[in-house]
């Protein structure tokens, strides 16, 4: 919901600037993968705070439960067993969900005015009452996050607890985490926090430890500390250098003004043509065989 304490920075399918007099600090959630124990307390807290409950599924022999994000599960723990060449087995656990991109592909793709907003603190939020159910956000997202509800055909995803953040609380997942693996604060503070942790990990032998804040989408407001930042794909397919897909960029970028211009130019062409040359009329109807005075074609 559009809350008075959160200003809107960007609004889907809107060409005029939103209210921007006030400036708010950029927030971020930092997920320290190296401290996550995979307990899923964050998943539970998310469903509890947001009054959601995924359907009870089936055990398919892995810890992932539910297996994927859905309209009720806005965050899921993903468990990956990885054996890097010459290394030992690694059990990599990642809390998946919306990354709250600074340049959100979902918002770029959305055709419904106000269905997707980005608050000035960086949170990207879906306003389902404006959603038309087209699923363009699914195509726009570089992280495969939005899910369309089978019940109402509206799109859902993590809100970064915008309702809680708006009143000065941290997101529910942050509050629930028993190991302090999930942190929340200003983006600046979280980057600082991450730098300290990365240095620590590097000292402990994780030479490639690093912060995941992909610049291809302008940076994200959900960041990871990864012990193996050189191979994010190992964390259940976290994309190495995510960007808005070229096809989406073309479709929702240059094609829009170019398309409008072509429509305008065609109309202008017809306008000029009509005034310059006029209509094709038949001058000597009588020559054509004597059917005088016929309407239209005459």
């Amino acid at each position, binding site marked *: 919901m559009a809350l008075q304490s959160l200003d809107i920075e960007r609004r889907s*399918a*809107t*060409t005029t600037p939103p209210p921007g007099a006030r400036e708010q600090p950029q927030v971020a959630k930092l997920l320290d993968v190296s401290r996550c124990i995979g307990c899923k307390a964050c998943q539970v807290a998310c469903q509890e705070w947001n009054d959601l409950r995924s359907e009870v599924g089936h055990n398919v022999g892995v810890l992932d439960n539910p297996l994927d994000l859905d309209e009720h599960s806005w965050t899921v723990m993903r468990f990956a067993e990885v054996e890097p060449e010459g290394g030992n087995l690694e059990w990599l656990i990642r809390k998946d969900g919306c990354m709250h991109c600074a340049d959100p592909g979902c918002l770029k793709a959305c*055709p*419904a*005015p106000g269905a997707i907003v980005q608050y000035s603190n960086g949170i990207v939020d879906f306003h389902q009452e*404006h*959603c*038309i*159910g*087209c*699923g*363009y956000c*699914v*195509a726009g997202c570089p992280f*495969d996050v939005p899910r*369309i509800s*089978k019940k109402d*055909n509206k799109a859902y995803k993590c809100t970064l607890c915008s309702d809680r953040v708006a009143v000065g609380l941290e997101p529910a997942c942050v509050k629930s985490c028993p190991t302090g693996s999930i942190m929340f604060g200003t983006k600046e503070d979280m980057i600082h926090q991450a730098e300290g942790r990365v240095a620590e990990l590097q000292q402990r032998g994780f030479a490639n430890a690093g912060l995941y804040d992909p610049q291809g989408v302008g940076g994200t407001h959900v960041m990871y500390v990864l012990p193996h930042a050189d191979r994010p794909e190992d964390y259940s397919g976290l994309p190495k250098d995510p960007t808005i*897909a070229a*096809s*989406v960029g*073309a*479709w929702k970028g240059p*094609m*829009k003004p170019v*398309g*409008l211009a*072509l*429509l305008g130019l*065609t*109309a202008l062409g*017809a306008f000029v*043509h*009509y005034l310059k*040359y*006029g*209509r*094709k*009329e*038949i001058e*000597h*109807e009588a*020559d*054509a*065989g*004597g*059917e005088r005075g*016929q*309407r*239209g*074609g*005459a």
Partner: protein
Amino acid sequence: MIDRYTSGERILHWLTAITFLLLAASGLAFFHPSMFWLANLLGGGTWARILHPFIGVVMFVAFLLMALKFWRHNVLSGNDRAWLGKIGDVIANRDDRAPPIGRYNPGQKILFWVLLASMIVLLVSGIALWRPYFAPLFSIGTIRFGALMHALSALVLILLVFVHIYSSFWVKGSTDAMLSGKVSRGWAKAHHPKWYEEATRK
């Protein structure tokens, strides 16, 4: 008067035309925010999203049936190349300088084939975008490519239909031909002389 279109052909044409207008309105609404208000013609954004693909199937079927009736008349042949060379004269209403043509001029023929091609692309790509029924069956990469192709071919279609509509106004008597099914002898002789000869020989 000479018969040019049967009632069946006219029904198919106007069914295609009306569905096209509804599709263009809702499609442009999804294409650019400045045209989102057009979605109101179909009852708002969500209704436009629901109805657009169904209307699209109706347009495709109507156009396909029409194409099955007309395609033979639209094969490029005879004087067509020479006529296209004189397109500047045709545009400037100096038709007497262009070679005589039959039932359709090469401009109309090219329009026919490009419309057919863009409708096929629209149908195929549209299925990949159709929620909630078919989109979940396709990968996100396919849906992205489908969305781009859908928008591109729709733009081609809309521009060409605009030219088609203007031409029917430009060549006086053409709109009446599609409404009443009949054209005057003068119209036929002036714009489609070789067809006029065939039609009056019988």
